[in-house]
């Protein structure tokens, strides 16, 4: 990113190739709508490009990238009138709807997992995705989401428990 900040366009291509898949899936599985995911995904990268002059080596690029993504997705939820709250009781998870595509394909296990993931509270799902998709540590997740490390740990624990439960139910 430092090389790109100094004008090396090739350096950006390397960064993009390494992070495009995980980031796209993180966005897609956060908002669950492909068209919206593509729009948000592009906006996130545009913010990276515009903010490169302010980039400083205070954290890993991955943390910086997902911090931008977190803010953009949070804005999206707020525009839709949704309040991001920490939900840690299992009852709240049980009321989420399943994705119809997964069910229609008949792949029960995948559908159940997908449904369980989609049914997670946003903050738990985000923490799980950052941990699983972006490979971030709890400290990095805490930094990217503006939470404490303890909160990130709690969210991840609840998310894993719920997903494990969904897989075992099959």
């Amino acid at each position, binding site marked *: 990113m430092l090389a790109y900040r100094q004008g090396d366009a090739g350096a950006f291509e390397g960064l993009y190739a390494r992070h495009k898949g995980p980031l796209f899936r993180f966005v897609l599985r956060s908002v669950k709508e492909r068209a919206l995911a593509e729009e948000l995904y592009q906006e996130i990268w545009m913010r990276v490009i515009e903010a490169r002059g302010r980039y400083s080596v205070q954290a890993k690029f991955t943390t910086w990238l997902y911090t931008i993504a977190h803010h953009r997705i949070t804005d999206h939820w707020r525009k839709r009138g949704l309040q991001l709250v920490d939900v840690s009781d299992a009852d709240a998870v049980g009321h989420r709807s399943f994705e119809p595509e997964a069910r229609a394909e008949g792949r029960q296990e995948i559908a159940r997992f997908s449904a369980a993931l989609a049914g997670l509270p946003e903050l738990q799902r985000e923490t799980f995705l950052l941990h*699983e998709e972006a490979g971030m540590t709890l400290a990095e997740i805490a930094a990217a989401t503006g939470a404490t490390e303890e909160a990130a740990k709690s969210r991840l624990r609840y998310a894993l428990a719920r997903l494990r439960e969904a897989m075992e139910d099959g």
Partner: protein
Amino acid sequence: MAETERDEKVSAGYRALGSEEPPRALDDAILAASRRSPARWRVPLSIAAVLVLAVGVTLRMLPPQPDAESIALAPQVIETPRPASAPPAQLAQPAKPKEQAKLAARAAPVPEPAAAPAVAGAAAENRMRSEVARSAAADSARRDEARAGARLESRATAEASAPRAAAAPAASAAQGMLAKKSELSPEAWLARIAELRKQGRAKEADESLAEFRKRYPDYKIPETLR
């Protein structure tokens, strides 16, 4: 808990969801934006760099700013014609007013075409040069006059001492004429004696010669007059 709590079964279930990628068109759009974007800030940056460089070079090429004293003195030097009999102390430093004239020409805040200050400076310099030359000539003439005056004065002194010396023995009737002759140079006096002899006025010639000998006892008198 941390990273050790990663659930392999959950991870496998997650990987089974697939690995969706962004559409190619989206990749191209983002990469194009990343390549296009640096050009947007490189051009202004280049312009800014060129401007800074140009200003820096211009500032370096400017002559050093004259101090307030020089600026204040310069117009007087240009406008006030120095009298030809300026004191030698001023003539001994012709470069200083010339520099001041140059500085004044450079520092003059004249809102005219760019060539005007240079022309004014050259004119002022020429004026200064001619004044200095004129002063030098006048001074030289004055020195020549002084030397000539000194020569005249010393001659007058020497000649004035002759009548005084001749006045003491003058008692005869010829004294008036002798005194008149004594104002002559020795050569002229002898020529006058020779003329008297030629005219047959031997007595007068002898008296005059005697008087001459008293006045100039060491002067070698030609044989023809003895």
